């Protein structure tokens, strides 16, 4: 099945989609906000209180979302004020990397639901190289990254090979491999000979040594690390692969019409396998980014942090186009970063961010619905 493009409308529809999604988010905040409910308890005696509380709740939520994601005007120093945007980029890096991997398979007509497993394997492999070897940084870091990507590529290649050889449906295989990968990594984390930190009984590896940590981009005051650079580089690379390389041309041909590709001499099985290999490597880099960049105090079986699944949405929102995915990754990164701030300052559970994100993707994909809601004229199809 070829991925059809989400036919996004113009910028107006995009803005309206975001507004609509935030509107539904507001409703959820309203109905669950303690102050608002308190105000409602004497609504008829003094309705203005309810409205006041409602406004407080909603504006508080979105203002804090903004402060956590972009610019915190309350921050004491300039560093503190602009820190949120760097946090956004930090969160965007793994989402983009994994989104690129998943988007690439979409373009080849494949569904990669196996992001979780690929991230885990990539992250664990990188962690293994990082904690078991003692090398100078110039060798250690690239080696750890490379091994992580390689192991994840091999792991990610399994569904491709199985599909090419036996026709096994990649959706099933990737879903199953998520669990298998999880338990494999878990097992490694309980063995001192593999990953478990010496002297500890917890399923966690030792912290990453300095020589294998992705360097900070903006100095120690910010958490933004070179993983983001990796993501940007990967975006260009994937763009080149898809649009300028013969391999990518074949991916797209196979993705759009496998029969025609086959009849034109393209080896469909090889295309599937290589698409999954590259995809696995990219998603694996997201795992590497986590272990060597964002959470360097040791790999655990939760290192994927749900990014493997979030990345599907990122790839979809980015319409499987590399730069679209980068943009979607940054948007979702902003929601993540802002979500934490919002939870800390307003006590609104971050889960609401999931709701808003998914609504944005849905509305963006259905411009006629958005136009109908806002009674905009629809162009004759």
């Amino acid at each position, binding site marked *: 099945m070829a991925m059809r493009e989400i036919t996004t409308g113009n910028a107006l529809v995009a803005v309206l989609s975001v507004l609509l999604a935030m509107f539904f988010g507001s409703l959820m905040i309203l109905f669950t906000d303690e102050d608002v409910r308190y105000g409602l308890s004497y609504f008829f005696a003094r309705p203005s209180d309810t409205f006041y509380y409602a406004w407080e709740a909603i504006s508080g939520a979105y203002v804090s979302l903004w402060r956590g994601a972009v610019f915190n005007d309350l921050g004491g120093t300039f560093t503190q004020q602009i820190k949120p945007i760097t946090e956004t980029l930090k969160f965007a890096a793994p989402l983009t990397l994994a989104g690129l991997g998943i988007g690439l398979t979409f373009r080849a007509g494949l569904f990669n639901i196996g992001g979780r497993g690929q991230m885990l394997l990539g992250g664990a492999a990188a962690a293994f190289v990082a904690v078991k070897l003692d090398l100078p940084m110039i060798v250690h870091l690239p080696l750890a990254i490379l091994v992580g990507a390689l192991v994840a590529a091999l792991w990610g290649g399994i569904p491709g090979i199985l599909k090419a050889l036996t026709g096994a449906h990649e959706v099933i295989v990737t879903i199953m491999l998520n669990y298998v990968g999880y338990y494999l990594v878990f097992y490694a984390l309980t063995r001192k000979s593999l990953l478990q930190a010496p002297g500890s009984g917890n399923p966690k590896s030792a912290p990453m040594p300095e020589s294998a940590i992705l360097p900070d981009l903006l100095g120690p005051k910010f958490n933004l690390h070179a993983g983001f650079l990796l993501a940007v580089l990967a975006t260009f690379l994937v763009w080149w692969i898809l649009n300028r390389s013969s391999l990518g041309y074949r991916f797209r041909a196979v993705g759009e019409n496998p029969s025609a590709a086959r009849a034109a001499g393209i080896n469909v099985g090889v295309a599937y396998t290589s698409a999954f290999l590259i995809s696995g490597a990219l998603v694996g880099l997201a795992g590497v980014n986590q272990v060597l960049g964002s959470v360097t105090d040791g790999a655990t079986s939760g290192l994927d942090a749900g990014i493997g699944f979030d990345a599907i949405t990122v790839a979809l929102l980015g319409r499987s186009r590399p730069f679209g995915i980068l943009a979607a990754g940054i948007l979702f990164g902003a929601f993540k970063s802002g979500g934490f701030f919002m939870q800390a300052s307003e006590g609104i559970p971050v889960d609401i961010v999931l709701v808003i994100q998914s609504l944005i993707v849905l509305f963006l*994909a259905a411009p006629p619905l958005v136009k109908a809601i806002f009674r905009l004229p629809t162009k004759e199809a």
Partner: protein
Amino acid sequence: MPGLWKTPGVMAAFTVLVALLVLIRPRSGDSTFRWSRDGDWFTIPDISLPANGIVWTAVALCLLCTAYAAWNARAGRKTPLVLVSAFAVLAVSGFMSWAVAGKTLPVVGLLAGALALAVPLVFGALGGVLGERAGVVNIAIDGQLLFGAFGAAIAASLTGSPWVGLIAAMIAGMLVALLLGLFAITYWVEQVIVGVVLNVLVIGFTSFMFSQVLSENSAALNNPPHFPRLEIWVLSGIPVIGPIFFRQTVLVYMMYVAVFLVAWALYRSKWGLRVRAVGEHPKAADTVGINVIATRYRTVLLAGAIAGIGGATYTLVSVPSFGREMTGGAGYIALAAVIFGKWDPIKATLAALLFGFASNVESVLSVIGSPVPSQFMLMLPYVVTIFAVAGLVGNSRAPAADGVPYRKG
């Protein structure tokens, strides 16, 4: 002709695997299989056999099966399903005997548990089969299960009646299905997108509500009564069969009915003919006066209701309260069962049961103590599924118009 060699290949792999187990870790002692439970009409005695003996016998028989399958493949024939089934039973028996050496395996508990674990998967898979047969890819099964569980918990807690909870679960499943329909059928949004995103939406919504509303009032809102176990008169007393199939909750009986009804209606009724027509070739259906859009909506809603029942099993049968993301991705497993079962209600049910069985082998063995580390045991159902899909199913054909929105000129 790699296609024909797949099955013998996988059989060989499994035979070697079982043989390796005994070679590397030979077991001593007898393996005991227990067949009876309290309440049976009569008791079948436990069977005890020397573990190593059974394993080697099983390996030998597996080898024979594999050889026969290979001979078949050489002659250009497909491996007959009977042989595959026989092989599976042999390989499983061999492995189990090895694992339970010196201990007792409660066979009835193993199978009854397998059935129980499969219930939400079966309902989810039925919903998936229905939707896809009508041409709407349903990745949102997980969302429907989760929302069903959520709705059931709240409604049953508020009213004190599990039946109301069940209805609420169906409505909840239908709500998710309605969104799926709205975006996939009416607005032609790529159905995989809608499905994936709806799952996230439901997770976000239920988790939000759980922490904001449910956990503060858990006594009133998240304290559902549960369906009791119902023994079916007479039938429940049949040894082995009775305790497995007829000492279950009403939802399991509903599952039997649902599987039968869906299978019958899909292939034998006017409704089913139209559903399949719409999923295979909507334009053709349109040209004979069938309302494609309405048919798809109706089917997707029904599918949602069925998946919703599956969700109800979480909060009205398994555990007495709703929990964050409590389906644990079961909807994705159900989706795998749909594909594995080649979009057929009966086969998808069998696939779900296979999965339930593999999961329960893990549970049972970990309880009685097995020589394998727990992580590897936990992997078992997933690995088995991969092997089964790669070795036995291979290319399967979805309904022709699956995932393709219908646009009129």
